[in-house]
């Protein structure tokens, strides 16, 4: 047993090559050549910039399925500073991936990353993360590179603002700050420049609410990308989300037209933030500002309990609600 432990220690030592063996310059350059800076619509807390990786000579770019690529007016700046308009070809919510096509001139070809060359990696691997974070680099300037180590491989359990983040595939948790504005869609490589992963988004862990630095292994994305390149978008399958029998915020809005206040505190009171006119919630008489105190017989003390309790009711069954409206308790029936 002792020997086995020693073995594990030894092996892990091998991965920690000193950072001084700073990335091979040629390899770094190769990584820089395939990265594009994306610019599109943003506003408020949504950034108007991001990162992508060129994955075909005719200008297919892999990035995350963020608001940036769904809002139109997207432009991409390649490593040599050339600027292209771009159109979103297909997205996969489950893999949080998207393929954007740059509008190249006829017969124009770009240096690209062949996803088939993507390598696998294990926790302990020193990595470099290339991205357009904070929009520091402009035009032909090389994007930012930060260093770190793959800390763990684990399914991602994250939230983005009030929404449960749909990505479920195992990701690499990084001991490097990649959770920055504009970094998502960047390239994770080994220290020798081998392509490894797609830098993930600005999300928080569902339980700890801390920012998660993660990347999705390119190897797991490869089949998804193939489908996306053929123009096949994949939407979320309902089964995926309802598996936990908890209704996500998204589903609450979709099914009942009910939006609750975001869960910001240790315990956020279950206030109704919005009721869509003509929805089931509106028909039941719910109003903005109502505090849900009971669902069925269960006392609600935290807004996060709403989805779980509502999800416990079978379809077609009316959900009895008690709300506090201006210090008056009102009983309502919500059609499920």
């Amino acid at each position: 047993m002792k020997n086995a432990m020693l073995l594990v220690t030894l092996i892990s030592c091998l991965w920690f090559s000193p950072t001084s063996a700073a990335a091979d310059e040629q390899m770094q350059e190769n990584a820089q050549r395939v990265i594009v800076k994306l610019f599109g619509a943003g506003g408020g807390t949504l950034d108007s910039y991001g990162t992508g990786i060129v994955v075909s000579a005719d200008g297919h770019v892999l990035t995350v399925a963020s608001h940036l690529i769904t809002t139109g007016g997207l432009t991409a700046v390649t490593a040599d500073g050339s600027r292209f308009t771009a159109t979103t070809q297909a997205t996969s919510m489950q893999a949080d991936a998207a393929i954007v096509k740059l509008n190249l001139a006829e017969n124009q070809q770009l240096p690209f990353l062949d996803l088939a060359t993507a390598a696998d990696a294990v926790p302990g691997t020193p990595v470099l993360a290339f991205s357009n974070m904070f929009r520091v680099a402009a035009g032909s300037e090389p994007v930012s590179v930060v260093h770190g180590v793959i800390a763990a491989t684990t399914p991602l359990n994250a939230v983005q603002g009030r929404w449960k983040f749909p990505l479920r595939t195992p990701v690499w948790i990084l001991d490097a700050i990649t959770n920055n504005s504009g970094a998502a869609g960047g390239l994770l490589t080994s220290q020798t420049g081998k392509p490894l992963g797609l830098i993930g988004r600005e999300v928080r862990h569902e339980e700890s609410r801390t920012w998660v630095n993660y990347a999705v292994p390119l190897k797991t994305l490869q089949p998804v990308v193939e489908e996306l390149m053929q123009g096949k978008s994949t939407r979320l399958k309902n089964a995926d989300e309802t598996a936990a029998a908890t209704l996500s915020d998204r589903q609450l809005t979709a099914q009942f037209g009910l939006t609750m206040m975001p869960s910001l505190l240790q315990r956020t009171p279950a206030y109704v933030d919005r009721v869509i006119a003509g929805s089931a919630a509106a028909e039941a008489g719910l109003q903005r500002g109502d505090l849900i105190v009971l669902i069925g017989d269960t006392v609600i003390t935290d807004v996060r309990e709403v989805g779980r309790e509502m999800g416990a009711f079978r379809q077609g069954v009316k959900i009895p609600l008690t709300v506090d409206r201006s210090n008056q308790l009102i009983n309502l029936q919500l059609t499920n």
Partner: protein
Amino acid sequence: MRAVIVLLILLTGRHIAAQESLQQRQQERISVLQRISPSVVCVMDPKGAGGGSGVLISSDGFAVSNYHVTSGAGSFLKCGLNDGQVYDAVIVGIDPTGDVSLIQLLGRTDFPAATPGNSDLVRTGDEVLALGNPFLLASDFTPTVTCGIVSGTHRYQYPAGTFLEYTDCIQIDASINPGNSGGPLFDRLGNWIGINGRASFEKRGRVNSGAAYAISVNQVLLFVEHLKSGLIIDHGRTGFTAETSDNGEVVISQVSELSEAYRRGLRPGAILTTFADRPLSSANQLQNLIGVFPEGSRLPIQWIDDDGQHRGTIRLTPIHDFEAAPELPMERRQPRKPDGEEGTADEAETLPESITGLFEERRGYCNFHFNRLRTDEILRPLQTQPVPADAKSWRLQLNTTGDSEQQADAVIAITAETIGMRQGEQAWLQARKDPDPSEEPVGFPGLLTALGELSSFVLQREQGFDEVIAFGETTHLPLQQKCRVLISRNSLTKSRWYFAEDQPWPAAVDVEYAVSTDEARLVFRDWQTVNAVSFPRQIGVVDANSETITWLLADPLTRTGEAE
């Protein structure tokens, strides 16, 4: 079990080298840190509220920090070193635009100083060490060390308003937090390559986000002599704007008609190919380059237009007219206490005894005491030089052909109010107080005014002017020589005097004497003293368009030759 052992042996055999190098690397890093840590300064507000970091640059205690670190503290500070001692320090000079300040620690002549490297050689991926005082953690002033890589070079970070602008800076992923500001960035060999000054803080608040920026040491060194002169030194502007064309050329978009660039012939549409001898590929790069030079620097540019290739030099003019240290924008102020609570910086300052006589307040200066020191230092060697009894004795005859075989063909005569030149049938008379560019001799614009200034300098030294101040160090063009600079003012005339090392007399003077007029630029060689009259045997006139020097031979005019 046996298999495990075999595997173990195999593995250890294969990777023993890797482990050795890892240990070696670790050992190297430890010894580098032992060497560089003593130069790292913990900069503290004397009221004990808040602070930042700094780095010692010379054994006499000069230390560089950030302007936004020292700006709240007033004229003196308390500084801790890793020997556990607290030293008094006095503010010396500031560069608010570039967010740099210079202080001097007192009480020792053997302060451990950092060794500057060359930040232009820094490359993305290089390992770096950031040392400093984040969160004011170390009560014994041992610097906190964070390690990272260079994330990008030649970065640009926008100013807050018009100052605290980071041009051509080094982006790193080493942890930088409040309190690190002003502290040094080192390369893996322990060479000082930058000053950690700011970071991209966003949703995390003011803590490390993996994107921090260091002012390059090369920029700091271009300013350090100005700072040592007690100045509020500014960065400069060129008088033109440019943008990047689609094919990566830097195209001039606007040129101010009052600018030197305009007088050199630069016009919108021209392609700027080099700035300060560096080839250009984008307008961003140009902006980065301009930002690393102090105001007043004369720099070469090259451009192409329909008429072909051109070259010339321009002087950067100040961005601001700092009359006093500017207030920091609220969001850039250092928390005066580590917990972010603002202290009261308004209390009347009582200077400690140690800095009595080391601080002198004057409008437009950071600490005029240091300017006085510097001026005295430059002029001291001249004290041993003879001073002629009266102004009349400083008269020159000039040989404008520059050929020593030829006779002098011009005479210069100077009075308190005028300076005149006679050459054959022609004569020019220039007023000393209010020079008129049209009264300058043909072929040598500005010569009379400049010689008037020279006579004042030779005869009266600093007493010959309304004001003489020290203005750091610069590379003189076209001499290509590093010189210390004095600036003299006489009513509207402003002269820059250039002093090369180990030479008491100036090597050159540039005289601004009229608005929108090229400076009169003279260079001097072969200083001589005849009958207590000092003069340069050779006076070179620099042509503004070609940057070439026309040499004139000068001789003191003897009484016998003075048949008027």
